[in-house]
């Protein structure tokens, strides 16, 4: 229904939309860009744009928590650095590999290799699950040593930052599961395929971000202490 009306546009003059007198470019402001306007097929972009916008806000939240971490570590006389649970290296390896497999998945989808796409999606989801399990193991190891969230400031921040990251990663895992469930019925309609690619792109961007965020938190927690 909401199609662009092109028939009402004057067909043969220089006056395209925006090209009124005194408005040199199609943009009306002297811009030389030819297609500064939204075309009906630019829809899929909203998923990618929306994801970048959402990531900006997530980044801001972790920025606020890390600034609190840095301030608290600088002013405290009660700072006891945590002994790093070794299993966190396994976590790091798992999430790094999962980023690679998800990137494979996205590229397979782009080349319409649907069954390989599904396979790589599932691999990524399992690796992500492995990461979460590894994190839980790390928490349990610390708890077994008697280190809890309220033990000292470093442990508070450790549980808080890893926990907040795990919650976000869980969201990514749900999105992967959703993609995987949907990947199993194929579509031939170009619009739907475009949307499928756009959602896959958005989830990939999110997952890479969570990967990078983990590396950052890992370095922050165990180099700055």
């Amino acid at each position, binding site marked *: *229904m*909401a*199609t*662009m*009306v092109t028939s*009402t*546009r*004057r067909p043969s003059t220089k*006056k395209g*939309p*925006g090209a*009124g*007198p*005194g*408005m*040199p470019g199609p*943009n*009306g*402001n*002297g*811009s030389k860009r030819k297609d*500064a*306007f*939204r075309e*009906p*097929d630019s*829809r899929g972009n*909203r998923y990618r*744009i*929306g994801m970048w*916008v*959402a990531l*900006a*806000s*997530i980044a*801001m*939240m*972790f*920025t*606020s*928590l890390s*600034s*609190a971490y840095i*301030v*608290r570590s600088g*002013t*405290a*006389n*009660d*700072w006891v650095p945590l002994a790093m649970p070794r299993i966190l290296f396994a976590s790091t390896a798992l999430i790094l590999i999962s980023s690679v497999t998800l990137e494979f998945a996205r590229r397979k989808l782009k080349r319409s290799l649907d069954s390989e796409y599904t396979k790589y999606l599932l691999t990524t989801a399992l690796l992500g699950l492995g990461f979460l399990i590894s994190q839980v193991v790390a928490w349990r190891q610390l708890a077994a040593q008697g280190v809890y*969230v*309220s033990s000292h*400031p470093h442990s*508070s921040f450790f549980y*808080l930052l890893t926990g*907040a990251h795990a919650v976000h990663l869980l969201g990514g895992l749900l999105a992967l599961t959703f993609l995987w469930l949907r990947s199993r019925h194929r579509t031939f*309609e170009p*619009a*739907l395929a475009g*949307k499928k690619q756009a959602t896959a792109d958005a989830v990939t961007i999110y997952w890479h971000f969570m990967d990078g965020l983990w590396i950052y938190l890992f370095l922050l927690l165990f180099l700055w202490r």
Partner: protein
Amino acid sequence: MSETHEGVHRHPAPTGFIRKYIFSIDHKVIGIQYIMLALVAVLVGMAMSLLMRMNLSWPGTSWPILETLFPTGAPGGVMTPEFYLSLVTMHGTIMVFFVLTTAPQGGFGNYFLPIQIGAEDMAFPVLNMLSFWVTLVGFIVILMAIFVEGNQGLGQWFAALGPSFTGGSGTVGPIGGWTGYAPLSALGKIAGPGQGAGMNLWVISIAIFCVGSLLGALNFITTLLNMRTKGMSLMRMPLTCWAWFTTAVLALLSFPVLLGGGILLLLDRVANTSFFIPGGLYVSGLLSGTNPNFPLHTGGSPILWQHLFWFFGHPEVYIAILPGMGATSHILATFARKPVFGYRAMVFAIFAIGLLGFFVWGHHMFMSGMSPYSAIAFSVLTLSIGVPSAVKTFNWLGTLWGGRIRFTVAMLFALGFVSLFVAGGITGLILGQSSLDLPMHDTYLVTAHFHLVMGVASIFGMFAALYFWFPKMFGRFMSESLGRIHFWLTFIGVYAIFVPMHIMGIVGMPRRFSSFTEYEYLRSLDPLVMLVSVAAIITIGAQLLFYFNVVWSVFKGKRVENDNPWEATTLEWNTATPPPHDNFAGVLPVVYHGPYEFAVPGAPRDYVMQTDMEAEVPSGNGHNGHKH
């Protein structure tokens, strides 16, 4: 949500009542829901300010109804000081979050941003619906914070959640102010009545509100970037859209910081961490670590909370005011029948205000013992916000200059906005300087300053917006004669309330005190205090007139004769009244002109609509972003 092929609206018009009016994904319905939420919240907030004024002018009087409502907060009908403090806290919290953040952005922005850029809905309609319902849950939780203290009623249920939720001695809610300063906000019920379960719910409500706002901001930004119609270049957007967009960016980057701070605060309260609680604290006769209700804390930083809070808190001020600035620019141009003076400068000023807003949070903390060098830096940055603010004011006056002004009620409120913004902003230049702020801090001067400039001014922006867009939203005008009475009572009323408060502040009357009977040096202010209270009662009474006008006009107001009753130029006046489900009945408009082509030489009418293909607009008419 189905999408069969491109070009088809993503969701068909719903038919059932629940999908159409309750759990709607139509941005217009969601916008009205937000406005209704704000209308309810502002009633609650106003009632609280009325109670505060009653106690300030007639301290110690017994109001039997208060005892019925709040047996613990007002025993014998006489307000306790704690009750007064909780009124201060809840009034601030409800007004800032659930009125000044919801109506301008979630309400009018939601309704008109997609229409003004020529989109059929928001980019993510389902998220849009979620953002409203999440916000509503936040509102319900903040209301519960009033009633959970004391171990009866709701309090009983919350006590089952754990020791940090068991009630204190009973009052009407948290008493720490809307800023929730640590460490008292982080300690739990030993910090005073209302600081137990009520404070927990306060933090949770704010966190929920953050999530709702973030969903909204995500939607606004994506919609504006991705869904503008053909010809709607950035510099052809109405200034309202620029304001909503900048507001959304501010919300997107500042609410996560508050959310982070809120999580830390909640952990301090329920998980016994020490982010904000220093060691060796002695509160309510107890030393940290000597009592099961006050476990051992060490090393936390209360100032850290202030930094996190105000890093959000200052942009929040602009979140409240920027949409009002946008609406004011829009309405001034429409009723002065002139293009907005200096459109480009207005856009850059909006952005400059938004950007600078992120670097001035320290001016709320001059009293925190910060280094004088930081204070000077924050001062200079704060004062520099005066530059874009002055650009905007100058351009508003330039827009009015030589116009043939139509004094509709919407125009009156827009003019009132300019007046209040200047009157309230001028004291910002005083408070922004650390040396002047030190003696003025925590006096009524601060109260007067921020109420005028961010409270009342942005409310005036919303009044203007509602009177202006009401015909489009409901197909009927609001009563202009009632509106005029409403405007003059409110306009004179708010000045009568807040100008005396400046004087009180200069004399040295402190904020947040429940009564001043014990302070001899403030005796001379008694008549002023009484004047403010009487003015407040009359002004609040005038708002009942407004509520009546809204309800009456929805059903009985004068019908709108055509789709463009104000002879305005932007896209919302192109479509049916009220707009159909997909805004443009399946045909997206194509834009040929800037947003404010009024008084166009040679045009048959004195305005050219954005979609008007035939009209010739000479170069440079009103500087609407044209290159010369």
